[in-house]
């Protein structure tokens, strides 16, 4: 077991779990372990119960010949790194059918068919492709309010990033680009100020400062990114968006 990989993974899985969107009801334990910088067997067992995130880590790990909680594995999944390129699309396809609960098999087939074998097992791609293939109304009659809500949920659910411009007691002010939905596609807005929560008891947030780049999930700062990670998350997000926009074009042409 790799302690740094367990903690990195837990930091990014924490907020959707605490909101009740995935994983077991173990918010308190995860938070205590993060605050204590502990990556014991109990935390690993909790993380293994996440119905999507953990299978994705296993997929990436077996393709790359790494341990599931090797730091580079959750890093690939949440942020993006070259391990994503080591996952054969055929494995990802089979995984999407047999190891992820609740996805519509027809939609899975459609995604892989439309993308001509280019599909990264990246969290943001999963989020955005799910949105693109869900029967959300996105025609000309969709209200701006509905568009705003859809964009907000996609933006919250992906891992975004922001440059810290002010450090408060429980909140960081960051400059971040949101995902927006318009003209039948997703795009990143220009950087704008946004407030996100953070926990100063979780390392390395006690020393977070202006200029740091942080990863964000559901309005919560998960970790401080290295320059390499900041570059990677921007790069892989851009790839995800261009792939998903291809899917959305196809979905629109079918309606």
């Amino acid at each position: 077991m790799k302690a740094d990989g367990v903690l990195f993974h837990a930091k990014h899985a924490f907020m959707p779990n605490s909101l009740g969107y995935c994983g077991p009801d173990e918010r308190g334990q995860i938070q205590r372990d993060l605050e204590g910088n502990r990556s014991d067997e109990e935390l690993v067992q909790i993380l293994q119960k996440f119905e999507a995130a953990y299978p994705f880590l296993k997929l990436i790990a077996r393709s790359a010949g790494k341990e599931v909680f090797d730091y580079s594995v959750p890093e690939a999944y949440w942020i993006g790194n070259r391990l994503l390129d080591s996952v054969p699309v055929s494995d990802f396809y089979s995984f999407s059918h047999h190891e992820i609960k609740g996805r519509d098999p027809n939609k899975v087939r459609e995604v892989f068919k439309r993308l001509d074998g280019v599909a990264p097992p990246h969290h943001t791609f999963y989020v955005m492709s799910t949105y693109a293939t869900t029967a959300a109304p996105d025609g000309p009659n969709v209200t701006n309010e509905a568009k705003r809500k859809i964009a907000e949920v996609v933006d919250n659910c992906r891992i975004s990033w922001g440059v810290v411009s002010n450090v408060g007691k429980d909140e960081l002010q960051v400059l971040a680009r949101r995902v927006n939905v318009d003209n039948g596609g997703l795009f990143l807005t220009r950087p704008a100020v946004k407030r996100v929560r953070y926990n100063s008891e979780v390392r390395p947030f006690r020393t977070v400062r202006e200029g740091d780049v942080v990863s964000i999930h559901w309005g919560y700062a998960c970790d401080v990114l290295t320059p390499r990670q900041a570059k990677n998350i921007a790069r892989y997000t851009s790839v995800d968006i261009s792939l998903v926009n291809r899917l959305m074009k196809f979905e629109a042409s079918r309606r």
Partner: protein
Amino acid sequence: MCVTRAGKVVSTSQGRARVEFFDGRALDDVDVSVVNAKKGAFVEVFGNLALGLLSPAEAKRRKQAWTEVAKAVGAARD
């Protein structure tokens, strides 16, 4: 991460709903306003937002798919 979950709307109030998912869990504060779901409807929920309506036949298929994968994953763990 958020997973897309399919489930049934069991009560609604002002655009929010309690949804019981096929995986046995439930969420109390799902926004169903985008798809205008009523009590008894089957919805596809992402985070806390219902993004799609499912026909009863589609819902049945999804429930079956979920059960099969859950069994397979359970068997693989045993």
